[in-house]
């Protein structure tokens, strides 16, 4: 018997509201592309909350129902549903831990069950945008408090005492007046018969009584399985009669298959079949690119078979895409006025009248996600029913897209979410699951589609490529009086709508128009740029180029005025205040500005904290230098100090990194630290090596040898993380992504301090040599 039995109409959740899709997949609707839709979703009452979030505006909103998320078995084992995808942030532990905290469950007697993709049942499941804790801290507390209340009511009835006299404590309910106790397991059947309490009446725990939240003493639930090889990722799913497939896809975005010769492939031992896969015309959203699939008895045979295929492609309209030429186009566009997105004062006039103008033109190339687990999916399609097993960040979106692609009702599609071997935004796009579904339907058998690393790099959804040009005008005293920032980059929206040349609100809101400096004359502009490949979300998205440009410019201003970097930064941030950029419908990571304002007091605080703990201004050895950068993203505030060392041959090492984060109220500081440690490594990978280039429309890199990422021998020797203690009721904010943006500019500023060389083009590559 458990709480999931006999779902009834919920009390306290009657108010259904119409919500708009605003998530990463909601872009479909915003762009007028068919496929977006509007759904009624139950949402929590707002009255009980100390703050509002954008959770209710996500597709299918939030479901607060203990019967959906919690079950208690007679033996006392409490099962809590984790409905977000685990890609390394620890969310599969953190959200259930919040429920366990509130319901007084003993964590050692809690099991976590992964939800399949069903947003009507569980609420929104898009695990992206660093949103999970931000949107679910309060709902998960309410779910836990509801379950606790039901257990307490059941015990009170059993004993014939008022519910006010009993209290749940560590997996049992006690009546202290009589000394009686009943375990959760003994109460499970009765508790399931209790009605779900209204949210308004729920009493949440006093944070001073927390056992788990904010403590960081709990390891992730999959820790034992991961260290023993039992953890199940997408590729680890094996079904009876399953076939193994790899696909040869068009090497150029928008290209098409002309012909293929399967004979040599069919001679490879273990290869069973060669077949064409349907592709969609570019821009194809998350739909498959098409190509030729080799079906075999194991993945090795399928790969060998694919190598033997003879393929002829029509490269289509992007066959001339070439990175060096495209860079020139972007640079030229950045030198001319563009669409004005934010205008305060008169930047043109102020720049003309300035005593000194500093110009920085920054280049940040395409990047590939290269999560350790390449895309992979298993599908079993029988008649008008489909079952999918896949490492997807968007289980609900995957379900919708599988249903649409196969032309079957969504109710007939089951999406089982495995662990994700890294996501970083790549697995928000479910093209690999759609490929598996199409092949399984055609073969009438379960199929696993495995992407190789080369496929991942050649046919991904890349991070954009951009030129960020900033002109800063200084008066005689060295004060910045004018700021013009032009950002030129192909937009993610181009993957959804042909003809896109301007960046979308969610892109310009990532560090361009929300720039927080106290400057009288500001102009933020977006000249046009057309895309020639699939652009997608990459961990922290447009914040990577923006923080790189803005925080490098701070370093350049310090350099030009001969002032300290940190003091220059604080002077630019200016007085503690709420920044209200003159921007219509400012995009704020989907969050209301009332709960999540642009608060320069918090921005200053992380700079001061990291400067203190990171010993800003400390003496460093010859050839070493310190650099600092701060950036607000995903409504969190993060400052980083990097110590860089460059030897006579130009070899770069990073002896120390210090990062301070203010992410509001937090759940698991130990996982926050691990995210920030990892962000430093990813930041260093981007700065030192990250570059995807195109020639003749094709990606020139293929694997980890020519698209390098940081390895242990070159990783920072030590990364220290400092978390700002939250004020009462400070809303939680993002953690997974915001650690990345400040790293590269802090490193570049440190390299300048160490060598006097100013790097404006990423990656660093060989620029420090000779």
């Amino acid at each position, binding site marked *: 018997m458990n709480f999931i039995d006999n779902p009834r109409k919920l009390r306290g959740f009657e108010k259904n509201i119409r919500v708009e899709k605003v998530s990463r997949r909601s872009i479909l609707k915003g762009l007028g592309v068919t496929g977006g839709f509007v759904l009624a979703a139950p949402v929590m009452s707002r009255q009980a909350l100390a703050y509002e979030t954008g959770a209710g505006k996500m597709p299918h909103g939030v479901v607060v129902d203990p019967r959906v998320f919690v079950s208690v078995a007679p033996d006392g084992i409490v099962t809590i549903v984790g409905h977000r995808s685990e890609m*390394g*942030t*620890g969310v599969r532990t953190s959200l259930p831990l919040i429920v366990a905290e509130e319901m007084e469950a003993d964590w050692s007697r809690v099991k976590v069950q992964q939800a399949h993709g069903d947003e009507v049942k569980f609420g929104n499941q898009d695990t992206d945008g660093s949103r999970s804790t931000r949107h679910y801290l309060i709902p998960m507390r309410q779910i836990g408090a509801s379950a606790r209340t039901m257990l307490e009511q059941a015990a009170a009835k059993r004993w014939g005492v008022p519910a006010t006299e009993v209290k749940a404590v560590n997996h049992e309910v006690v009546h202290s007046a009589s000394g009686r106790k009943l375990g959760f397991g003994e109460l499970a059947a009765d508790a399931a018969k209790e009605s779900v309490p209204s949210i308004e009446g729920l009493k949440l725990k006093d944070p001073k009584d927390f056992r788990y939240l904010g403590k960081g003493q709990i*390891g*992730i639930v*999959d*820790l*034992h399985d*991961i*260290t*023993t*090889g039992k*953890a*199940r*990722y997408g*590729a680890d799913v*094996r079904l009876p009669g399953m076939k*193994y497939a790899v696909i040869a896809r068009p090497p150029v975005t928008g290209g098409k298959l002309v012909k293929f010769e399967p004979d040599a492939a069919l001679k490879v*031992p*273990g290869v069973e079949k060669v077949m064409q896969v349907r592709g969609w015309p570019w821009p194809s959203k998350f739909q498959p690119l098409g190509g030729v699939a080799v079906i075999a*008895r*194991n*993945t*090795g*045979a399928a*790969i*060998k078979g694919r190598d033997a295929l003879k393929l002829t492609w029509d490269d289509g309209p992007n066959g001339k895409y070439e990175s060096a030429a495209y860079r020139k186009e972007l640079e030229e566009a950045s030198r001319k006025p563009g669409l004005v997105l934010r205008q305060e004062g008169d930047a043109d006039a102020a720049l003309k009248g300035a005593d000194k103008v500093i110009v920085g033109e920054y280049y940040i190339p395409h990047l590939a996600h*290269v*999560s*350790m*687990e*390449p895309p992979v999916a298993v599908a079993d399609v029988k008649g008008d029913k489909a079952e999918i097993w896949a490492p997807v960040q968007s289980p609900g979106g995957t379900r919708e897209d599988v249903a649409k692609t196969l032309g079957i009702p969504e109710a007939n599609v089951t999406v089982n979410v495995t*662990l994700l*071997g*890294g*996501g*970083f935004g790549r697995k928000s796009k479910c093209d690999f699951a759609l490929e598996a579904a199409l092949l399984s339907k055609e073969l009438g058998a379960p199929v696993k589609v*495995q992407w190789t*690393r080369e496929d991942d790099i050649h046919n991904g959804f890349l991070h954009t490529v951009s030129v960020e040009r900033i002109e800063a005008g200084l008066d005689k005293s060295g004060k910045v009086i004018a700021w013009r920032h032009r950002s030129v980059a192909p937009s993610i929206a181009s993957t959804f709508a042909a003809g896109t040349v301007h960046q979308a609100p969610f892109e310009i809101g990532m560090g361009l128009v929300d720039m927080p400096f106290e400057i009288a004359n500001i102009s933020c502009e977006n000249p046009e740029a057309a895309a020639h490949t699939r652009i997608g979300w990459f961990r922290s998205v447009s914040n990577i180029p923006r923080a790189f440009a803005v925080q490098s410019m701070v370093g350049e201003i310090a350099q030009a005025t001969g002032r300290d970097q940190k003091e220059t930064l604080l002077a630019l941030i200016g007085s503690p205040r709420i920044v209200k950029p003159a921007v219509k419908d400012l995009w704020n990571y989907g969050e209301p500005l009332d709960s999540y304002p642009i608060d320069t007091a918090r921005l200053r605080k992380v700079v001061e904290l990291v400067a203190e703990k990171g010993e800003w201004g400390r003496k460093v050895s010859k050839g070493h230098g310190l650099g600092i950068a701060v950036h607000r993203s995903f409504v969190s505030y993060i400052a980083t100090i990097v110590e860089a060392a460059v030897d006579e041959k130009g070899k770069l090492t990073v002896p120390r990194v210090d990062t301070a984060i203010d992410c509001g109220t937090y759940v698991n500081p*130990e996982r926050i630290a*691990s*995210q920030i*440690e*990892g962000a*430093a*490594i*990813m930041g260093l990978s981007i700065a030192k090596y990250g570059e995807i280039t195109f020639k003749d429309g094709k990606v020139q890199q293929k*694997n*980890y*040898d020519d698209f390098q*990422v*940081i*390895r*242990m*021998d*070159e*990783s*920072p020797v*030590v*990364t220290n993380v400092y978390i700002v203690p939250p004020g009462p009721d400070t809303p939680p904010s993002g953690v997974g992504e915001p650690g990345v943006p400040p790293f590269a500019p802090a490193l570049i500023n440190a390299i300048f301090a160490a060598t006097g060389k100013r790097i404006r083009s990423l990656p660093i590559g060989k620029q420090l040599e000779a």
Partner: protein
Amino acid sequence: MIKVKINGQEQSWDGDPDLPLLWFLRDEAGLTGTKFGCGQALCGACTVIVDKQAVRACITSVNDVAGREVTTIEGLHPTGDHPVQKAWRQVNVPQCGFCQAGQIMQAAALLMDNPKPSHDQIRESMAGNICRCGCYQRIENAVHLASTGV
């Protein structure tokens, strides 16, 4: 017919002798703890121990290990309590966890060869194993902990 001992059990293979050991382990023998990351011995996610050496299963054929003893993450310790595994849990190393089996196998092989590696030796020896989540600081600390007693 190729015979190979995997985690103490004799297995045989009569298919393509050039089949990479990785795919034999994962798709034919059902041992999915060993991961595919690059297929070119660049990332170390597929690291297994052959006799006493760490090897990349993605570029090692079944034929290469004929008559030899292969240990995968599933066979490293009967209850998963090898000092490296215990240290990994104590330090809370993994984020996504996908590369960790390969990291653990590499670390176990390192400690067989050099029971007390210095921090520099750890950083050097583990450099063939990529972690895209960036758990290096913790991996380094866990290997050090395993070498000094968990």
